[in-house]
């Protein structure tokens, strides 16, 4: 039986406040059922706003960060003119894209064409709702967190496939097929590594996975299980890169080959959605990696009490986002360093290398769990 492990201060506050407000209403409106329904709706609204704020708010930051990281890797400066060091650049981009002309190519399946970018956005939003940002900050603290994430991640493929197919363009179709094959394959190893985490932590709830890593930095799953944890982390890094369609595994977009792949025919706001989805997926995947391997919102204590006290003073949210941005930085560095493998090599890599290694890892982890 799952017992919610967190206190929910915001939820409690709303539940507390709703009866006090309804007091002012006529007596016929006052009932406990109505109060709880209203409280539920208000809570849901707060959650939705919170998730949207985290995701949509961080996407422009990430785009700016990507452009800066890429520029500095390439010995350039990157955006410099708008705001301090070009900080307002992505905001200008977003506003511009919102006011661009939007049209679908002739022969496109219009409904599917406009639906696809929305579907792509679903997966990262749901995943984001499951991530514990702090001891008391989690939108949906469900017992089956990891299986839900695995299930929801499949939505991304659907959107990309739909978008590519409905554009009525051969490049888009090729890109969509590539990405379909790639994402479905890599989903397997992605799920396997999450299973590894579930196995060693003994829970599918993300909050308990995080809290299982309490202690010093060496209690994080990446270090707690010698070698295996680190291998699992690297494998997660690889398969999540592929899962997100990010370079070097961006064969679905492959600008040099397919001129943009599945989003070749998209413009204006729908394209902005694809663009945002890429970065929101980046933040959710980094958050997942942080939760599963890097101790989530826990501070990196090192076992010396004097230092740890200071580290513990910093709120968990800050630690969480610090780790997330470190992960994002890693993803970006990889993107701007490596070249892209070919589509069949990518498949070979998954089925002939990554999957066997994952199975071995799972077995080794199981043996380790039995012995220790």
């Amino acid at each position, binding site marked *: 039986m799952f017992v919610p492990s967190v206190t929910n201060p915001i939820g409690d506050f709303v539940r507390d406040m709703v009866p006090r407000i309804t007091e002012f209403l006529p007596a016929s409106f006052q009932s406990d059922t109505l109060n709880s329904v209203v409280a539920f709706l208000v809570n849901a609204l707060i959650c939705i706003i919170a998730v949207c704020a985290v995701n949509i708010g961080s996407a422009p930051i990430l785009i700016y960060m990507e452009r800066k990281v890429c520029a500095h890797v*390439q010995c*350039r*400066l990157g955006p410099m*003119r708008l705001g301090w060091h070009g900080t307002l650049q992505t905001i200008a981009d977003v506003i511009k894209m919102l*006011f661009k*002309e939007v049209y679908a190519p002739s022969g496109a399946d219009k409904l599917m064409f406009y639906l696809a970018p929305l579907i792509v956005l679903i997966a990262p939003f749901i995943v984001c709702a499951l991530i514990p940002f702090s001891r008391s900050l989690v939108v949906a603290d469900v017992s089956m967190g990891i299986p839900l994430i695995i299930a929801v991640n499949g939505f991304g493929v659907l959107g990309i496939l739909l978008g590519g197919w409905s554009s009525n363009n051969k490049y888009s179709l090729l890109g969509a097929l590539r990405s379909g094959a790639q994402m479905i394959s890599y989903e397997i190893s992605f799920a396997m590594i999450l299973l590894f985490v579930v196995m060693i932590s003994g829970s599918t709830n993300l909050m308990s996975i995080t809290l299982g890593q309490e202690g010093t930095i060496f209690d994080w799953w990446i270090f707690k299980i010698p070698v295996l944890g680190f291998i699992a982390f690297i494998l997660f890094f690889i398969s999540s890169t592929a899962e997100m369609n990010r370079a070097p595994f961006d064969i679905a977009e492959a600008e040099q080959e397919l001129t943009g792949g599945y989003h070749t025919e998209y413009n204006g706001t729908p394209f902005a959605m694809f663009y945002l989805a890429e970065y929101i997926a980046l933040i959710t995947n980094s958050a997942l990696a942080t939760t599963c391997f890097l101790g989530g919102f826990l501070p990196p204590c090192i076992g010396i009490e004097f230092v740890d006290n200071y580290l513990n003073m910093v709120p968990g949210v800050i630690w969480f986002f610090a780790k997330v941005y470190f992960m994002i930085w890693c993803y970006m560095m990889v993107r701007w360093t490596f070249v892209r493998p070919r589509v069949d090599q990518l498949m070979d890599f998954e089925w002939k290398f990554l999957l066997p290694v994952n199975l071995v890892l799972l077995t080794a982890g199981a043996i380790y769990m039995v012995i220790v």
Partner: protein
Amino acid sequence: MGIINLAPKVLDPIPGGKYVVNAIDYVVNWARANSIWPLTYGTSCCAIEMMSSSMARYDIARFGSEVFRSSPRQADLFILAGTITRRMAPAIQMLWEQIPGPKYVIAMGACTISGGPFIYDNYSVVRGAQNLIPVDVFVPGCPPRPEALFHGLLTLREKILKETCREPWHEGDIRNVSTMDRYREAAKTWAALEQMKDEEMADARAKFKEEHPDYKSPYKPVRIKKEEFPEVERVACKRYGMSQLDIYKKLKAKFQSVTVHTHSEDPIEDVVAAMPADRPLEVMIDVEDYLGAVEYVKNDPEFKMDFLIDVTAIDYDDHFDLVTQLRSIEIGHKVFFCVQIKKDFNIPEADRPTSLLGKVPTISHLYPGAEVKEREVYDMFGIDFEGHPDQRRIFLDRDFVGYPLRKDFTHPEMIRRPV
């Protein structure tokens, strides 16, 4: 175009509404002017400078324009980098139509402004991008430096900032006036302006002359002392492989029709023997012997002409010269076969410019590389290659009329170079 263009209609009647419209203008223009994503498109030299401008030294990213989109649907700016040919023109118009509005065009380089170096005697270059699509900013240069492109970009930015909801960006029309010579039009306007200025200044000049009857300009042209250079003899490089005389003799023994074209009265062998070492031997041969000779030099172990440099032709009044340039990679000598193809004058004179005038056997089964070269000769001269597997036009459109490298070729859109 879009909802925001309705804003003035809705908001202006409301008291204070025009301030909201102004605010919208400010924000949208700020965004549009500062986030200009160009399309990855380039045909020739200017494309390299365009690439340079996005590279580490110049870094177009500072202006927020490094996001080169390869799909026109996501681009805002169309940088026309490089010459536009008639064959490319429909593609350019299509690309421009695919870019969602508001879209802007920068014509980069002399070729896209007026045709640049390709304005005269040219049958294939469009004289200026303005003849095809509306252009916002022209950047002169051949090619313009990256700094010049940035200046163009910033000029475009100023232009965008002037747009308002009340006078919104509007899509121009595609034009098709590829015959228009923008250079001459500009020259005419310029001359008219000069004349107007002259007339305006005439009185002032006359007055000045009255006041200063013996005025002399203080300007003196600077004369640079001309350097003297010695005359240097040209040194021909070493001979590789067989000498020209040996080649000539061997070919003459095999094929009777082999000769060498000379202007002097001396015997051919003396002329050939006197050739400088680095001058390839060019033998004249009859059409009948041509294929046999090429086959012979390819397979003969002493010649081993395995490498086809080029196949080209020269047009004369009554015949074509087909020049097949061969060399031996291993041995290092070269032989040029020159075949005189008599023009077929049985064809009525009116049809001659548009019909194939000569016939020659193909050598594309001996040298696979000759296939495209012969297509080029077919395209440019109208020589029929018998047995060619894929004889199509290569550089020009399928429906192009005439063969441009013939001396009597005329094209309605060609302007003669003023001598």
